Each structure stands twice: as C-alpha cells, then as structure tokens.
C-alpha cells in the first residue's frame, strides 16, 4: 500500500479545508451573505479526500449538489470557490453557476450538479474519451444514496461496464435523501450489492474511516487505470448540517446526531494517524493554522470581488450564435 506520511498530511489538509470551508459558508449563509440553495459536505470529508488523493489533475470527477468537498479535494482554487458561492465575477464560474454548479474543467472537476443522478451519465464521457484516445485517465463519479435510485445511475453503471470504461462509482451514503432515510428509499440491503447487477466489484466501507476509503479507492482506481473496468464503492457516513442551509434536521433523532458526532472523520483520522505516527501534533497544528488563513483570505477575496457586469447574463450561452 502506498500510504505515506506525506500523503496523509495532504489528505488531512484536504479534510480540514473542506470542514473549515463548510463551517464558514454555514456562518455566511446564516448572516445572509450567501444566497440560494447551499448543501454542505461537512462530515463526509474522508470520502472526497480519500478518493481524490489517488487522482491526478488529468483525471476527472463528476459531482453532486453537495459538491464543495469534491471541488476542494480535486484542487479547485478556494478563492474562486468562495467567490462563486457569493455570485461574484471572480468566481470559478464568473458567478453564473453558484454553489450547485462550481466547476473547473482544467482541474478535472466537471461540475457540481443540481440534478440528482446526472453525474453518472456525464462520467461515462471522460471515460469514453480516455478509452477512445488510449490515455490512462480515470474518472470518478460521486453520487449520493438518494441518487442511487435514479435511472441514470443504473444506466451509467451498465454502460460503463459494457464498454469497460475506466470509472469508479463512489456512493456517498449519508443515510438520507433530504428528509427521507435510505432505509425507506432503497430496497437493497447495501447499495454496493448493486454491483452484481453489472458484474463489477462492489464493496461497502465506513465513510468516516479515511484509511479504509484510501485503500479501497486505490484498488478500484488502479483497476480502472489498468483498463479492467469500473467498480462500485459505497461509503457509509452522515452529514453534519441539514440537507441544505435552512433545514433544521427535525427528521433525525438527537441520539443519531450524537452518534454521528462521536464518529467524526477528522478526529478519527487524527487519532489513528497520530497512533500510527503518520502525522504529528505539530504538523496538525501547522495545517490547521494555515488552512484557517486560507479560508479567511477566501472570504476577503469573495467580499472584495466585484459583481458580474449585467451584460454577463447574455454571454457564454454558446461558443458562437450568429
């Protein structure tokens, strides 16, 4: 296994960046500084971080409405993300996309997506591109437990397997689709059981356990890179915030919320990382301080950025339209 101390610090930084970014956005939303539908990734950091550590900039991911974590893990610039969440001209999408559509194709991040399950079909695209052109690029499709019930995910997994595309399907099972529990909306015992339906490897891991995710994702991504086709990984975890900002989470019991807090992926990682001497208290402190500064700067950047010019409404619809 490729798990080195260096990579673990990387992964830790990614997780902390996500957590601090999301906590900050929650605050800004509450203050009325950030508008719209905002879905936060806090609690699920180990998944994006543990998967994307195995990807290069040339690899691709597709994402969901809860996309900030994926963006950060794939290396999208934090300033441009924050500016996008504000709707500023300096945003990753010039303010036209917002939280639900942050993208950076150059970084291999094919966009957060407002349509549940839409990332599955899209992910087959770079997969097909890599196969057609004979590159070794891999594409990871992140999707939620709720998305697993969309027809698009079924079609995408079958197509990817038929065509032996270099894909990995990562299901982020946080137990809920909005207010509806997975136990209600999903007839399968495990979402990973559905891998049988496409004759590909499928496994369920603890979505709060960075080490487990790291290992499982490495295997699946290597497999895809070798041209052996897709795999399905289900990561079981939770989200800390509501479905979107403004949701009071009345559909979870206090017990459940406490249980979640006790399984914090970052705490969990720190504890085990320290035990295994993969990182030190000093390194942790350094990362924490540095990331806090990055987030602070991002807010300043966003606040200071200009609003897009009103003419921008009309541009970027087409490359050209006579």
């Amino acid at each position, binding site marked *: 296994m490729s798990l080195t101390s260096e990579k673990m610090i990387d992964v830790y930084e990614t997780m902390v960046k996500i957590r601090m970014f999301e906590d900050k956005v929650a605050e800004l939303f509450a203050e009325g500084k950030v508008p719209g*539908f905002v879905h936060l990734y806090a609690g699920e950091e180990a998944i994006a971080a543990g998967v994307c550590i195995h990807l290069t900039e040339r690899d691709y991911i597709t994402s969901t409405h809860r996309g900030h974590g994926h963006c950060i893990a794939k290396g999208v610039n934090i300033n441009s993300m924050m500016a996008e969440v504000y709707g500023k001209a300096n945003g990753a999408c010039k303010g036209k996309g917002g939280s639900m559509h942050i993208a950076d194709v150059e970084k291999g991040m094919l966009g957060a997506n407002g349509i549940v399950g839409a990332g599955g079909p899209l992910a087959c695209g770079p997969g097909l591109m890599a196969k057609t052109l004979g590159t070794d690029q891999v594409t990871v499709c992140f999707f939620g437990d709720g998305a697993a*019930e969309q027809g698009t995910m079924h079609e995408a997994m079958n197509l990817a397997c038929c065509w032996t595309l270099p894909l990995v399907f990562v299901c982020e099972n946080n137990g809920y689709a909005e207010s509806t529990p997975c136990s209600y909306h999903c007839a399968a015992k495990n979402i990973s059981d559905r891998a049988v339906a496409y004759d590909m490897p499928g496994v369920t891991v603890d979505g709060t356990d960075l080490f487990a995710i790291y290992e499982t994702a490495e295997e699946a991504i290597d497999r895809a890179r070798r041209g052996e086709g897709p795999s399905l990984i289900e990561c079981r975890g939770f989200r800390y915030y509501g479905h979107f900002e403004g949701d009071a989470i009345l*559909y979870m019991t206090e017990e459940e919320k406490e249980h979640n807090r006790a399984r914090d992926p970052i705490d969990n990682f720190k504890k085990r990382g320290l035990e295994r001497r993969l990182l030190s208290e000093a390194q942790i402190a350094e990362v924490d301080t540095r990331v806090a500064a990055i987030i602070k700067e991002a807010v300043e950047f966003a606040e200071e950025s200009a*609003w897009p010019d*009103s003419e921008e409404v009309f541009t970027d*619809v087409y490359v050209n339209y006579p």
Partner: protein
Amino acid sequence: MATRKITFREAINEAMRLEMRRDPTVILFGEDVAGGATLPHMEGENKEAWGGVLAVTQGLAPEFGRNRVLDTPISESAFIGAAVGAASTGLRPIAELMFVDFLGVCFDQIFNQGAKLRYMFGGKAQVPMVIRSMIGAGLRAAAQHSGCLYSIFAHIPGLKTVVPSTPYDAKGLLSSAIRDNDPVMFFEHKLLYDMEGEVPEDNYTIPLGVADVKREGDNTTIVTLGRMVHLSLEAAEKLAGDGIDVEVVDLRSISPIDEDAILKSVKKTHSLVVVDEDNPRCSLATDVVALVASEAFDYLDAPCKMITAPHTPVPFSPALEDVYIPSVDTIVSTVKSLRE
C-alpha cells in the same frame, strides 16, 4: 362563503386537504411530501419535519396517513409513471415533481404515456392525475432549479397546464385540476408561496381554461400569467399615473387557453404586450402573439410586443438573476413605446 387571508402555500395545501377529504381515491406522493420523518425511526418524535421541500404539503401525512401520502425514492420516472398507471385504473393521484427543472428525468412518462394514453387507446381510458411542480426564478437557485418551462407542456397535446397567480386562484384551480379527468400540470411559482390573499374556507372550483381580467383598461392589453401578473399590475399602476390605462389579462391556464378573453381584450385595446417569465423561443409569449396576429390582426394598431426572459439559462448571481427576470420598468417602457 367565509373567507380569510391565507398564503398561496396554504391555499394549495388546503385544496389538497379538502379534495382528499372529499374523495378517498385522491392520493399524494413525491419526494419528502410526507417528510420522511413519519417513519418508525422517529416514533414519538416530531412527526412532520418537512412536508415537501418548501413545506407545501405539511400536515397532510398526519391527517391522511402514510397510505395516502407517500414519500418516494428519487425516481421521478417511476412515481410519475405510477401516477399515470394508478389514474388509469381508478385513483386520482397528485404527484409532486419538486422542481419543473426535473422534467428531463421523467418527461417520457408525462408526454408519451400520461398525455397520449387516452388517444392511443381510442378514448377507452382516462388519466385523471395532477402533477404539481415549482417554477420560476428569483430564489438564486441557479440554472437547474429556476426554470418556467410551461411552454413545453402547453405544446404537448393531451396535457392541461395551469399557472395560478394568487392564493384564491391557486386553491380553486387546484381543486378543479384534481377533479378533472385529464392529466393536469399545475405550476406553483416559488416566489409566490408567501403571498397572502383572501380565500374562502370551503371548497370551490375555478374552471380550467378561463382567463381572469385582473385589471380593466382601454389602452393596451397585457396578457400574462403567474408571478408576472403582479409585476404587470405594478406596471399598470405606474402607467395609470401617466394616463395610460392598460388591461391585465391573467391567463391562469395556458392549455386550454382562453382565446376568447385574449381576443376580446385586444379588440378593445388594439394592442398587445405579453409578459412571460419563460424563455422567448417557441414559447407561450409567441403563442399568444401568433393567436392575435392570425385572429385579431385587423384590430391591431401597433406591433405586438413580448417581454420575456432572455434566451439564456438562469444565472445564479443576484446581480445577474435580477437582470434575467422581466422587470416592471421594462413593462412600463414597452407599453409606452407602443404609443410613440
């Protein structure tokens, strides 16, 4: 009938509640409409956490039970198809498609199944169902949660399409839609949910296909619908200040569309402005203009004008979305331009 002020949201909830009391074959389903939380794991806790993503169906699951108010997986094709199948075999389902922008994942079940079944079967079936869905820009919900798209549904033979603008209309039209024997698309503008208005407590219906003149006037006809009715009325007030007396025709339903009301008004005012939040091409706006240009041409004194969203997706940034949505100022200046 006793009336009182309630919100647009409450009016819609009330229509469903009263129709469900009236007719045991009316059922309701969609994502989170019961609010997930009425499930066993919440026994003894808050029973109604959500009631739909914007709380429109709150209280219905407790009253009617899980057998008649059902959450669904995120499987719009499956549950809209279920509505079509249930409607043609004895129920009167109300299916909630959370945002109209999600039509793309279930359109086949709407336009090829629900809308065509009766015709394909030679009239030997009927599909009494309602699909409720949210439309409209203004909530900073960006390109995939802010569309209107009702023009697409009006294009499809076999569907009826309703776009109410006030709490009173919403309740009466939704009751009609639920009692109607054809598939009805019922669109709720998300920026109207908190709007208040006088609404009778009892059940009542407003026939589909009948427009409502929300303001009488002699100078220009504004044909509009949904949230744009309110912007048009605001513009009308301003124009009245300048001595221009416009008539505001609220279509309420666009399929069937009240051709007579439109033509009657234009024959009186001799000019037409359509105000429509949908995108401009092959749209409701062009539909109304084409009707007038073919059926009331000889009465027109001026070119027909359309005020619509631009031919672009809905942008996220508040600075851009506010430009995207038709404005009162544009309505005022367009009406004035007709008199130059």
